[in-house]
C-alpha cells in the first residue's frame, strides 16, 4: 500500500468542485425477515435464525413481508418521493458465499419510491436540499468472518465462517442524485444528510438506525471536477462508512486524495475504497470497471408490488412531524440557540428531553440533567444516552425533588449516581443513602449555632456588616450536615441570628 500524499483541503477546493452521491442502507426493524418468517433479532447464536427460505435451500420460495413494504413506502413519503403504483423485485446475480442463493433479491429499474428530496440543516442554520433519486427494497446478505488472515479480510485468511442470521433482513437503499454545489461544505452536507436521514428513519419508527450496529450504513461516492466544468470526474466509492463523523471525514479525505492525484496529472481509478477509523484515511478495494454485470431480471418467484393509492394516502396521513421541523419547534419552545439545539441533537438527547418534560419536568431542568451530568456519565462509560439505566421519568422525579426543595443540586447528582449504579429509583436512593435536605428547622438552627460558636471571628465580621463573610459559615454548616442542608435557608438563618441584613 502506498501512502497517498494529500493536498490541503483549501488547495483542493481552490482547484476543484466536489460532486457527491450518497447511498444509505437501512436495516428495517421488522420482526421478521423480508421474505420469510425468521426473527431479525440481533446478536443471536450463529445460524439460529434461519429457515429453508433464507438459506436458499432448493425448492424454497420467498414471500414479501408486508411491513417491509409499508416501511419502504413511509420512508419514500417522508423523503417527498413518488410511490410506484406497480413495481417488481429483481434478481441481482453474483456469487458470494454469504449470499445463500447467489443472487440478491433487490429492485432494479422499478424502485418502490423515486424522485424526492430531503432538506438538511447545516450547522449555521442554512438549509441544503439533497435530491433523492430512489429508495428501493432489498435483502441483506449473511455475514462472513474471515479467520487466520492479518487484516480480517478474505485475503490471507485460512478459512471463513458464515452466519446467515442476517441473510434476508430487509434493507432499504436510499440513493441521492449527484449532490452538486456544496463546494467546501460537501463533507458537512454529507454528514448533515446522513444525520437527518437517521433522525427521519427513527421518527418513522421503521428502524433504530444505529450506525454502530450496522443498522444504517453509508457509501460515499465522490468525484472532483475542475471549476467551471460540467462533466463529472471519475468517482470513488467509499463503502460502509459507519458513523456520522466518519462520513464527514471520508468525504474530506477523498476530496484531498482526488485533488492530489488529479493535480499531479494522474487519473482516478473507479474503485471501491475502505475507510479507516483510526486515521480517517481510505485505501483501495475492488476495481469497479463496467465489466461488472449483475444480470438483473425481474424476480419470477414474487408477484409485483402494487400499493393501492388509498393505502399510500393513509400512510401519508400517519407520517410523524418531520425531525427538522420538530427540532425547530422544540428550539422555539425551549428557547435555546441553534448551537445548543445542534449539541442536543448530536448527543441524541432530543427524544429523552422531550420524554422528561412529558413526565413533568421543566425543559430547562430536563436539558440540564441530560446534557450535563448524564452526558458526562455516558461519555465516560462509552454509552449512548439512551443506553444509560435511567429513564426520563426518573430524571423528571429528580427534577421534581429539587424543585420541591427536598434535594439540592449536589444531592441530586448523588441521587442520579445511585440510580445509574442500579440502587433503585430516585426515591429509593434518597431513602437508602439518606440524602434528603435537612429542612428540620430545629436541627438546622442548632447546626448554625454551633457554626457561629466555632467561628467567632467570622461571626463578628458579619455582625459588623461584612455580609459576604457569611459564605464561610454556610460552608461550615453544609459540612456539618454533610451537604444535606438547603444552603439558601442556612444563609438566611445565619444572617438572622447575627442580626445582619442579607
Amino acid at each position, binding site marked *: 500500500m502506498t501512502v497517498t500524499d494529500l493536498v490541503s483541503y483549501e488547495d483542493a477546493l481552490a482547484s476543484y468542485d466536489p460532486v457527491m452521491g450518497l447511498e444509505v442502507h437501512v436495516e428495517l426493524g421488522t420482526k421478521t425477515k423480508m421474505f420469510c418468517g425468521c426473527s431479525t433479532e440481533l446478536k443471536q447464536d450463529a445460524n439460529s435464525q434461519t429457515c429453508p427460505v433464507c438459506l*436458499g435451500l432448493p*425448492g424454497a*420460495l*420467498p*414471500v414479501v413481508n408486508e411491513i417491509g413494504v409499508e416501511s419502504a413506502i413511509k420512508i419514500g413519503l417522508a423523503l417527498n418521493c413518488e410511490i410506484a403504483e406497480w413495481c417488481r423485485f429483481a434478481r441481482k446475480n453474483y456469487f458470494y458465499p454469504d449470499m445463500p442463493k*447467489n443472487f440478491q433479491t433487490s429492485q432494479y429499474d422499478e424502485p418502490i419510491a423515486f424522485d424526492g428530496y430531503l432538506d438538511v440543516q447545516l450547522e449555521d442554520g442554512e438549509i441544503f436540499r439533497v435530491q433523492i433519486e430512489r429508495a428501493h427494497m432489498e435483502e441483506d446478505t449473511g455475514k462472513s468472518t474471515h479467520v487466520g488472515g492479518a487484516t480480517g479480510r478474505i485475503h490471507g485468511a485460512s478459512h471463513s465462517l458464515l452466519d446467515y442470521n442476517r441473510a434476508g433482513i430487509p434493507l432499504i437503499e436510499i440513493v441521492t442524485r449527484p449532490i452538486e454545489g456544496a463546494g467546501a461544505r460537501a463533507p458537512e452536507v454529507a454528514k448533515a444528510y446522513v444525520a437527518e436521514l437517521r433522525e427521519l428513519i427513527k421518527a418513522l419508527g421503521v428502524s433504530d438506525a444505529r450506525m454502530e450496529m450496522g443498522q444504517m450504513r453509508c457509501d460515499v461516492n465522490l468525484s472532483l471536477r475542475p471549476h467551471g466544468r460540467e462533466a463529472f470526474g471519475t468517482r470513488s466509492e467509499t463503502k460502509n462508512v459507519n458513523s456520522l463523523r466518519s462520513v464527514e471525514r471520508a468525504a474530506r479525505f477523498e476530496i484531498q486524495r482526488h485533488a492530489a492525484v488529479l493535480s499531479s496529472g494522474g487519473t482516478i481509478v473507479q474503485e471501491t475504497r475502505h475507510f479507516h477509523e483510526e486515521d480517517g484515511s481510505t485505501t483501495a478495494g475492488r476495481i469497479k470497471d463496467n465489466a461488472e454485470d449483475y*444480470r438483473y*431480471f425481474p424476480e419470477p*418467484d414474487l408477484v409485483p408490488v402494487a400499493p393501492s393509492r388509498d393505502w399510500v394516502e393513509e400512510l401519508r396521513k400517519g407520517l410523524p412531524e418531520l425531525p427538522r421541523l420538530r427540532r425547530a419547534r422544540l428550539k422555539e419552545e425551549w428557547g435555546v440557540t441553534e448551537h445548543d439545539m445542534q449539541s442536543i441533537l448530536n448527543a441524541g438527547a432530543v427524544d429523552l428531553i422531550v420524554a422528561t418534560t412529558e413526565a413533568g419536568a421543566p425543559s430547562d431542568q430536563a436539558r440540564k440533567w441530560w446534557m450535563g451530568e448524564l452526558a458526562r456519565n455516558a461519555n465516560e462509560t462509552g454509552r449512548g444516552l439512551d443506553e444509560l439505566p435511567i429513564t426520563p421519568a426518573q430524571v423528571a422525579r429528580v427534577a421534581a425533588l429539587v424543585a420541591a426543595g427536598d434535594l439540592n443540586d449536589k444531592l441530586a447528582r448523588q441521587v442520579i449516581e445511585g440510580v445509574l449504579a442500579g440502587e433503585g429509583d430516585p426515591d429509593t436512593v434518597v431513602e437508602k443513602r439518606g440524602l434528603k435536605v435537612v429542612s428540620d428547622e430545629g436541627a438546622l438552627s442548632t447546626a448554625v449555632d454551633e457554626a457561629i460558636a466555632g467561628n467567632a471571628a467570622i461571626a463578628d465580621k458579619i455582625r459588623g456588616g461584612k455580609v459576604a463573610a457569611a459564605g464561610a459559615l454556610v460552608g461550615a454548616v453544609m459540612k456539618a450536615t454533610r451537604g444535606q442542608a438547603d444552603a439558601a435557608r442556612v444563609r438566611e438563618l445565619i444572617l438572622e441570628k447575627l442580626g445582619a441584613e442579607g
Partner: protein
Amino acid sequence: MTDNSTIIKLTAAEIAGKIASGELTAVEVTEAHLARIDAVDEKVHAFLHIDREGALAQARAVDAKREAGEKLGPLAGVPLALKDIFTTKDMPTTVGSKILEGWVPPYDATLTQKLRAADVVILGKTNMDEFAMGSSTENSAYGPTGNPWDLTRIPGGSGGGSSAALASYEAPLAIGTDTGGSIRQPAAVTGTVGVKPTYGGVSRYGMVAFSSSLDQGGPCARTVLDAALLHEAIAGHDPLDSTSIDAPVPPVVEAARNGSVQGMRVGVVKQFRGEGYQAGVVQRFDESVELLKSLGATIVELDCPSFDLALSAYYLIAPSECSSNLARFDAMRYGLRVGDDGTKSAEDVTALTREAGFGDEVKRRIILGTYALSSGYYDAYYGSAQKVRTLITQDFEKAFEQVDVIVSPTTPTTAFPIGERADDPMAMYLADLCTIPTNLAGNSAMSLPCGLAPEDGLPVGLQIIAPAMKDDRLYKVGAAVEAAFVEKWGHPLLEEAPSL
C-alpha cells in the same frame, strides 16, 4: 383375496373404493406395488429411491384409520410415485443430479405435505432429466429410464420415471412437473394421462426450481378420473408460494365424472402441424378431431402465428431463469463438494463442484441463460423473449374468444430410441414444440392417449388446452374422449403394451 397382478392394474379410484369398503387393505395394495417394482424396475429404472418402510408405515396407518372407523379421503391408501424434484424430509431429493446426490431436505414440499395429508402412500422418488431439463430422461445423472412399451426407447422427459412407473403398473398415480412439456410429453409417449395445471394452480414451494415462471407441478395417472382425483388433492392456494393463485380449485373431479363435448367449440391450430410431425401421429390426431365432431363438438380452425416463435422464446427464458436458480449450488451449504482439500479458495471449490456435479445439458442452459441476461444482450434476448411471451398469451386469448378448448398432438413423434437425439439438442428440443406455448402463457393442458401410430405401434398423445383456471374443461373433454376411445378399442390403450 385379490392377487397382485389384478391389484396393480386397478385404477386409483378403484383402489380407494376397495380399501374404503374393506375389500383390500392398504398394506396389500402397497405390497403388491412394491412386489411389482421388485419384479420390473431393474429393467424399467423408473425409481431413483424406493421407500419400502415409509410406504408400508403409511399403508398401515390408513388401515388403522379405517379400522377405527375414521372417514378416509378419496385417495387414502393409493400408492404414488413422486418425481424426485419435490422435497421430502424422509427421502433424498436429487433432481436427477449428482450435485444433490444423497441430499435429504430438512423440509417437505407443500405438495408432499398435501399428499401425506390425503393419506396417499408415497412409494419412492422417480427418475428424471437432471433439473427437469430434457425430453427423454437420458439427462439423468443416474442413468436412463426405459419406456415400458419398448425398453430401448425413451419414456419421455423430464418426467420419464413417473410416466414409466404408471405404464409399467408400478404405481397407479404419479407426480410430474411441466416446464415445457415434462408431464404431457412423457404421458403421450407412454400411453398415460398427464396434466399441466394452470400456472399457480399447484404450489411450487419445495419443488426444486428450473424455470420459476414456467414450472408447474401436476398429476399423472392412467385414467382421466384418477388424474382429476390427484389434481384436486394437490391443488390450491399456498401462502408460501406468492405465485400460487388464491381462488377455488376448478371442479376437476366433477368434470371428469361428467365427460362431454356436446356443444363445445374445439380449436385446431394451424401452427401445430406440418414438417417434423410423424405421419401416424397426424393420422391419430385427425381421427381424434373426427371423434370430437362425432361426439357433438364444433371444430374451429385457428391461426396463432406467434406459436412459431414459442420454442425460441422458451430457450431464452427457461435458461435465463435456470442460470440464476441454479447459482445456489455452490458447495457451500449442501450437496456435492469437490476439491475441498484445505488449499483451494471457495471460488475454486465452487467451480470444481459445478464442473463435476452438473451434466452437459444443465451446463449448456446455464451458459445460454447467463449470456442471454448479460448487459448489452438482455434486450435482444431475454427482453425479446418476454415480448414473444406476451404475443403468445394474446394469441391464446384471441383463440379462447372463439373456442372452449384447443386440441393438438402432444408431441410430434412417438417415443424415439434411447441415444437417438442425445447428441442433438435441437432435435430433442423439438419434442416440446406443441407443449411449450401453454407454459409460456400459463394456461392448463392435458395429454391423453389417442391410439397407436400405425408405423411403429407406439402410443400417440392428444393434447387438450384450456384457458387459465378452466382446468375442469380438460377433464370434461378428456373424460369424453377417453370413454369414446376405450369403447372403440374395447379396452384401455395400455392393455396393448407388451408385458414386461
